């Protein structure tokens, strides 16, 4: 990889991201240099060996209509959409799938509703058969009221599915230690909740999410709890690689508009992360110089 701080006069660069690049890199710390390098490469999101340009994963649960789903998928710009497996109903043949096939998105089957490692592993195997993909959003629920993950069953299931060749994206708590165990087990991504599924309570423990981001080398996808655009932006500012949300869009009054809001929030949060925010201060720091202040 070329040194991102080295001046490059080989081609004219357009677009605001690249304006004044040489000036911007002046005094950059070593830590920020890789981030800038990624930005300059178009900042692709690599997950399970696949490259995505969108960092917004969309769940389809709770959609009011197929029309709303189609509009939301389009507005969100998502390239990866979660789906579930349920007992077949002849009347519902293919409808949701037709919308998603038309949109050209990649499908990510989940194991929603599973309470044990055994159930989740079996569901993942069935999903692999139905969808022809070995990607799975692993979800093992330990409590009905909160739908919080069962850490023990989750880790067991993750280990077994990785051994069977699955690309496992693990829905987990925001516990950095559990996140590291999942990454060590070979999960392709760790997906901590911000707050309980569908609660819209946002990110209750931003510090834990940031710690988890530091603790693992695989992508971290904030999954669950997003209520509105600022929550999604915060996830990205904390260093998450992507955001997965469903209810915040599908149950919004206007899902299409909220999908667009989420897309822009994820992009804005990502840019802010790469740009490097200013430190928080207890007191003010004047933005206008006092030098040359007239005596009046």
């Amino acid at each position, binding site marked *: 990889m070329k040194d991102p701080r080295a001046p490059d006069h080989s081609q004219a660069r357009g677009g605001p991201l690249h304006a004044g690049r040489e000036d911007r890199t002046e005094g950059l710390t070593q830590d920020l240099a890789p981030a800038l390098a990624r930005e300059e490469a178009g900042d692709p999101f690599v997950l399970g060996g696949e490259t995505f340009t969108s960092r917004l994963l969309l769940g389809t649960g709770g959609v009011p209509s197929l029309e709303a789903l189609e509009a939301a998928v389009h507005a969100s710009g998502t390239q990866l959409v979660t*789906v*579930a497996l*349920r007992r077949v109903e002849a009347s519902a043949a*293919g409808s949701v799938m037709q919308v998603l096939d038309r949109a050209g998105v990649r499908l990510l*089957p*989940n194991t929603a509703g599973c309470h044990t490692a055994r159930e989740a592993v079996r569901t993942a195997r*069935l999903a692999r058969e*139905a969808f*022809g993909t070995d990607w799975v959003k692993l979800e093992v629920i330990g409590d009905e009221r909160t739908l919080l993950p069962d850490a023990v069953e989750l880790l067991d299931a993750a280990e077994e599915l990785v051994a069977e060749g699955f690309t496992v994206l693990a829905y987990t708590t925001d516990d950095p230690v559990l996140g590291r165990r999942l990454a060590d087990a070979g999960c392709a991504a760790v997906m901590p909740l911000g707050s309980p599924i569908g609660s819209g309570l946002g990110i209750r423990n931003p510090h834990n999410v940031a710690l988890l981001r530091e603790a693992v080398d695989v992508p971290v996808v904030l999954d669950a709890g997003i209520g509105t655009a600022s929550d999604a932006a915060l996830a990205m500012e904390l260093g998450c690689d992507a955001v997965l949300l469903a209810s915040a869009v599908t149950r919004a009054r206007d899902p299409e508009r909220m999908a667009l809001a989420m897309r822009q929030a994820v992009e804005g949060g990502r840019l802010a992360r790469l740009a490097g925010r200013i430190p928080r201060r207890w007191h003010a720091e004047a933005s206008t110089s006092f030098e040359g202040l007239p005596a009046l």
Partner: protein
Amino acid sequence: MQVTVNGETAELADGATVADLVAHRAPGHDRVAVARNGDVVPRSSWAATALTPGDALEVLAPTAGG
């Protein structure tokens, strides 16, 4: 013969296969998975897998989900 399909008792012709079951229960679906007594039956084995009385079968299809 009597089997259980998606939690309900069902009567199927003797010698019916998983492929017969899918054709009957999931017409028009192109992404279907079948579990027989908890184990997945690969699509490539549907036609060759004869059902036996008392089998517990799950015939699953995609749906919207988080």
